[in-house]
């Protein structure tokens, strides 16, 4: 226990409009996320009041109580886990503000609003909020901001950080600050907005955000291309991207994921193919028509077996449905899924595909490759059984090697899931000692008492990736 009874009592006097949960059943219910590990918080706090939160953070800062912001805990990197005990702050309850300002083309939101609710609200006004993590119907915008989430549309439209222009944040010392504003252009001083986006809850609590919206593209088209070789598919991806065509989505499925989907729910996919690429092009109808033809010709030139353009909306939906089924389908093979998001530069996609195949063989692991190929965010997924210690050990080694491969090819540890606890041990590998130290110094200045989401991003001495 980090918290003593007196402190809990004081928290209860601060949180008047919300709840302070300390029952064991509640504490266990806030002890996990969608990654690994279970850590018990001492208390869980829910409130919609920014003033109460400010008072709470001041208390925590004075008494050195760790605070962990939490959205809906769909993090795949351990982001909201209360690794050192203390208070989990359930921000999913702060979901009442969602305004669409059509004149300024912005959305103003509370942190607990679901990403899908923003999509819907924007669409109702003919607008468009592009970041679309697959978890958008469950995850909160606060979580998306903290993780700088991406999605299939990242290829053309970028990720969360490209759409945030202003924030309201409670600092770890309990002060309320506003960064940025509601203008697209803003160069006043340091860009604290961008610093906080992707900071994984270590620099403060986001209590409100101003997001940029776009007009909705008038039309879209889908193309499915089949390949006999994964490396050819990788090559086709680079060729399309260097041809001047920028698809809204470009997704890759390798043979293992195709077979898994077909076994799970027959979807008319070619099980003997080594890979398929799914494309979505959006924009003016005439322009798309032209681009579809170009894409088909390019793919055939690098040896595609087949190019399919769905005839109607239903066929289109079926194709994207098959892509969505990959995740559920592969866990039917074995229960434990280690979902990686190491990312490489676009030109290195074929090399990364080859490296992944080697790693799969070397460690004799069940490795499935699918994901947002267009932006180099390949999502190698390892399917294992966490009860099998020996297998998990091989997985740990394979994961480390995947990271090394991505970095060697000029890539990064994480394209969208964040560092959290899972990738902290590899940070120095990417940033170097000085780079990592610079980040640590920023953290120290913001949070001198290290109370805000401690144990994340920065590795503890000797910390290793442990999956068992």
């Amino acid at each position, binding site marked *: 226990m980090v918290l003593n009874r007196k402190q809990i009592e004081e928290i209860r006097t601060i949180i008047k409009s919300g709840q302070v949960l300390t029952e064991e059943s509640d504490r*266990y*219910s806030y002890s996990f996320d*969608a990654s690994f590990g279970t850590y018990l918080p001492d208390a869980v706090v829910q409130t919609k009041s920014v003033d109460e939160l400010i008072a709470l953070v001041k208390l925590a800062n004075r008494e050195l109580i760790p605070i962990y912001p939490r959205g*809906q805990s769909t993090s795949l990197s351990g982001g909201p886990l209360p690794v050192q005990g203390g208070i989990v702050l359930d921000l999913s309850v702060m979901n009442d503000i969602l305004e669409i300002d059509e004149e300024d083309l912005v959305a103003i939101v509370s942190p607990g609003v679901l990403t899908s609710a923003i999509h819907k609200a924007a669409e109702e006004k003919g607008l468009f909020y592009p970041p679309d993590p697959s*978890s958008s119907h*469950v995850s909160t915008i606060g979580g998306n901001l903290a993780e700088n989430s991406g999605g299939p549309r990242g290829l053309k439209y970028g990720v969360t950080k490209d759409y945030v222009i202003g924030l309201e944040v409670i600092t770890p010392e309990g002060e309320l600050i506003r960064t940025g504003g509601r203008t697209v252009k803003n160069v006043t001083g340091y860009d604290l907005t961008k610093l906080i986006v992707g900071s994984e809850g270590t620099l403060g609590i986001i209590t409100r955000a101003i997001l940029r919206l776009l007009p909705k593209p008038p039309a879209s088209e889908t193309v499915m291309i089949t390949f006999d070789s994964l490396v050819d598919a990788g090559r086709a991806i680079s060729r399309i991207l260097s041809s001047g065509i920028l698809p809204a989505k470009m997704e890759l499925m390798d043979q293992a994921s195709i077979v898994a989907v077909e076994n799970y729910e027959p979807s008319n996919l070619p099980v003997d193919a080594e890979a398929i690429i799914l494309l979505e092009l959006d924009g003016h109808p005439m322009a798309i028509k032209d681009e579809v033809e170009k894409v088909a010709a390019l793919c055939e030139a690098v040896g595609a077996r087949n190019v399919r353009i769905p005839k109607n909306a239903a066929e289109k939906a079926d194709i994207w449905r098959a892509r969505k089924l990959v995740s559920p389908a592969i*866990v039917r093979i074995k229960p434990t899924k280690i979902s990686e998001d190491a990312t490489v530069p676009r030109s290195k996609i074929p090399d990364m595909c080859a490296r992944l195949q080697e790693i799969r063989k070397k460690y004799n692991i069940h490795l499935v490759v699918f994901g947002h190929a267009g932006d180099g965010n390949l999502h190698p997924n390892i399917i294992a059984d966490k009860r099998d210690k020996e297998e998990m050990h091989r997985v740990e080694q394979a994961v480390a090697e995947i990271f090394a491969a991505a970095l060697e090819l000029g890539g990064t540890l994480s394209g969208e899931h964040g560092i959290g606890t899972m990738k902290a041990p590899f940070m120095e590998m990417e940033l170097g000692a000085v780079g990592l130290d610079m980040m640590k110094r920023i953290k120290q200045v913001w949070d001198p008492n290290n109370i805000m989401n401690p144990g994340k991003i920065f590795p503890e001495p000797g910390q290793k990736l442990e999956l068992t």
Partner: protein
Amino acid sequence: MKESLEALRAEFAYEKTNSCVQCGYCLPVCPTYASMGKETHSPRGRINLVKMVGEGRITDLSVLEEPLDLCLGCRNCETACPTGVEYGVILEAARAALVRRKTFSAPVRMLRNTMFTKVFPSKKMMKLAGNALWLYEKTGLQTAIRKSGLLNKLPYHMGAFEAITPGAASPAERKQMPQRIQAKGQAKYTVAFFTGCIMDAMFQRINRLSVQLLAAAGCNVVIVSEQTCCGALQAHAGEMAEARKLAKRNIAAFEKEEVDFIVNNAGGCGAALYEYAHLLADEPEWSKRAQAFTEKSRDISQVLAVCGGLHLQPRSGERVTYQPSCHLTNVQRVTREPLELIRSVPGIEFIEMGQAHMCCGSAGIYNLVHYEQSMDILDEKMKYTKATKADVVITTNPGCLLQMKMGIGREGQATSIRAVHLVEYLAEAAGIS
């Protein structure tokens, strides 16, 4: 007592929790997560609690009681789960494991025991209850008691429910239900009708109309006399032994007749019948028989649909909406047929209800034992119901029917909206009374 982890794991269906990847996809569809607003009352939270027991981290099992108790068992979470977690199995196993250890206070134990083993499964007791209800209504006692305000003092908010319970069938009417009914015209199928315990006692009219509709659609209908209560309430309360006993009695009873389908008209009962195969899977001498029973078991809407529908009179300008039963939708996965039947009524305007897939909060006896929580869930449902501006709300389960009546009453709309069972509505349109 220190129990071995192995034994606990087996008892709590721990293995099944391994397929939960804690993605949270089930959160948006869980009515208790929506109304109670914490992870403790979400599917993911509940599964995690069971997981923690299996991993030896939670040893005080009472920690699980409230979160599991407050689960509606609507199983909407299963439909959203991408990895196919068998939540129903986990819930059932955990509840049974808790009941086994629980020392209920003497009066509660007695009440549970009497209700689950003596009242619901007994034709005689249910008949008595039905007759008592009828007597109570006919003798003017009802009016007197309603006036006295005494109803508000009844335990479990029984008073609130009393006000909306339908008129009971008289003992004379009750006897009129024949054992065999001939199909109108050429018989397409022979079916056995499952009467149910509560349906039989309190909604006998709906049962009678069901049989008439089946005959009108072309079925020879048999009513097997040795049948008993389906066991759903017992299973949901963790009384598995009792549930199994009832299942066996029903299987044996229905095996005596050569029929194409075993038809029921209550989503909750139907789900229990549909799951007999699973309930008795581990009993070698029963598993095959249970499988055969399950395979024949159908909701009445399915049977009316395969018969080719009904001959219905046009109705003028009625706005109709549909509140599907969770167990019909999520367990039996029957979604198409009730809608088709409703839409086949000429002249009506059908309006789909927003969030129709969310439970109304009835959930067996949930609304009796967790009245407040159930009313929160119901009030949410009523927002969407009112938004349809419908004149009629159609349901497919007796519990849902009562609950929707209650909701309409709470909103003070009893004069403008009516709730009816699908069977009642179709009978009206078919000119059957």
